[in-house]
């Protein structure tokens, strides 16, 4: 299988704070890989390091074999990394449709843009109904759909998702996880950060456990779900 993404000994700092202390991580084509861990473990920082919003002090991020950690964010996106950021970060004063259009900023082929928009509306019919509504007026669940849809408009080779189920009602959490499985069925490679470890390990193929900036455990998702330590710390039992 083809290795899509690889982190080699990545160290990231916020000023003096040593947030990532030598992360090693791999994602293969067609996989769902999940990264779980407590608050402040460094999950968001890992994703932000991959998409170039913060640059590592040491180590490498390889995308399809090429180092990308020195590139600015907008060039990393161009390589094919889509990021659904923590807290959704919808553009509040753009309409739903404009939010999607801007997701496809790099695509100059109008047909492809329309095609992808249709796919997103097919995936989330709710968004089609709210097409002309301002992003900021959507409900939390709808904003999450829009954030995912917006990243899909780039047709990325790998999708980074940062706590897509955060703050959503149980029905919507189920919907989001179904969507993740569905996207993967259609061939998307996904790196999923979650606090909902149970659901994440159910949907993922492999997983990593992150603790205060270090990977403490990794393996097939099923095995992690059975692991006593993981059960105690993240699965509530």
């Amino acid at each position, binding site marked *: 299988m083809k290795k899509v993404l690889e982190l080699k000994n990545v160290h990231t700092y916020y000023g003096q704070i040593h947030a990532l202390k030598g992360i090693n991580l791999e994602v293969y084509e067609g996989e769902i890989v999940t990264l779980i861990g407590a608050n402040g473990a460094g999950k968001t920082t890992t994703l932000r390091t991959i998409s170039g919003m913060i640059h590592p002090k040491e180590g490498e991020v390889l995308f399809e074999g090429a180092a990308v950690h020195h590139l600015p964010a907008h060039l990393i996106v161009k390589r094919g990394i889509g990021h659904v950021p923590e807290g959704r970060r919808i553009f*509040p004063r753009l309409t739903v449709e404009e939010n999607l259009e801007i*997701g496809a*900023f790099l695509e100059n082929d109008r047909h492809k843009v329309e095609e992808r928009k249709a796919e997103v509306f097919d995936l989330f019919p709710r968004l089609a109904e709210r097409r002309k509504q301002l992003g900021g007026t959507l409900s939390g669940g709808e904003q999450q759909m829009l954030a995912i849809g917006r990243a899909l408009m780039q047709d990325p080779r790998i999708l980074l998702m940062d706590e897509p189920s955060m703050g959503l009602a149980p029905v919507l959490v189920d919907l989001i996880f179904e969507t993740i499985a569905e996207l993967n069925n259609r061939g998307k490679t996904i790196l999923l950060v979650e606090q909902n470890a149970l659901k994440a390990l159910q949907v993922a193929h492999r997983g990593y456990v992150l603790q205060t900036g270090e990977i403490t455990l990794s393996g097939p998702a099923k095995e992690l779900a059975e692991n006593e330590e993981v059960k105690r710390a993240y699965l509530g039992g």
Partner: protein
Amino acid sequence: MLEILIQLLPSVLLEGLILGFVYAMIALGYTMVYGVLELINFAHSEIFMAGAVAGAETFILLKGVIANPFLLLALALLIGGTVAAVVAILVERLAYRPLRKRGTTNRLVPLITAIGVSFFLQDLVRLIEGLWHNAFYRRYPSFAVFEATYNLPNWIGVITIALTVWVGFWVLAYFGDWLLRRFKNRAPAKGRTLSLVAAGLTLVFLFLYRHVVFADLGMTIQMKSILVIVVSLAMLYGLNWLVHKTKLGIAIRAVAQDAQTASLMGIDPDVIVSRTFLIGGFLGGVAGVLFGLLYTLVHPYVGFIPGIKAFTAAVLGGIGNITGAAVGGLVLGMLEMLGGTYLTFLTNGAMGTEYKDILAFMILIFILLFRPQGIIGQQLGEKV
């Protein structure tokens, strides 16, 4: 007395509208840059000046070559706009971007830089003009076709009065509602309610002064004023289209709302900032040429007063708000003309039109004191 006031009203308002369009176009440059960078580009008045001077040079240089004044004007607008846009891009590139990259968080630093850039540009243009012509005051040539006046029929006067009185009452109703809310805790009135109240008051006004209003209200307008209105409307329409219907426009708004997330969409914020300076600069340059057309004399220091007034207009409309800047420009232009004209009457000539500048600055101070978010900012609610 009252009759004179009412008879003058349409022409005064029309003059105000024309001036207001010029302010509006300059104000857009302030507001758009503020939208993407949260920086008040005080050098924008000098970008306007560069356009005005470049336009004058175009007229003077090509007057003997091109006979058609309209074609000349078109060229001057194009060159004035382009020169201003290039200056704007260079200012961003050479002054603001290095500061941004250094991660300066102190808001005072870019502000002082902007003022420094202003002085630099004034003296640079003075130097160039001085070396070139040995004089830095330049005059727009006058053309008979531009100076020609046309009579407008009475009904335009009536409509102008009705519309502007309506706008005036609208603003009053808005303030009234705002004042009421200080005493009573209730939701702000809807825009439609305000419009209806204003329309009612306007009808009462028209009824009361019926016999005066239907007296002779003939207005005259100069060709160059018509040109200013036409060009401004075209520019505002074009900007509206650009901001709302094009990919660049959506990207500009996205960067204004959340630059970091915009970069996750593959947008290079630096490119968008540069484009924003280009657009704002072009509008400012075109405004400069129109200003020259109206007032004839331009020089390296010509930008200061219109610049600070346009800044007032941008603040009036809520800085960062595109529609607000356009409306703020028009409102300020009209207020200034009204104040300038009627102050003379009201004080029996003791205070003349020269007080209109003070009026504008008083407005600026009052807004900053009482409503820093602008008057229309909230109502129209659309930031860049």
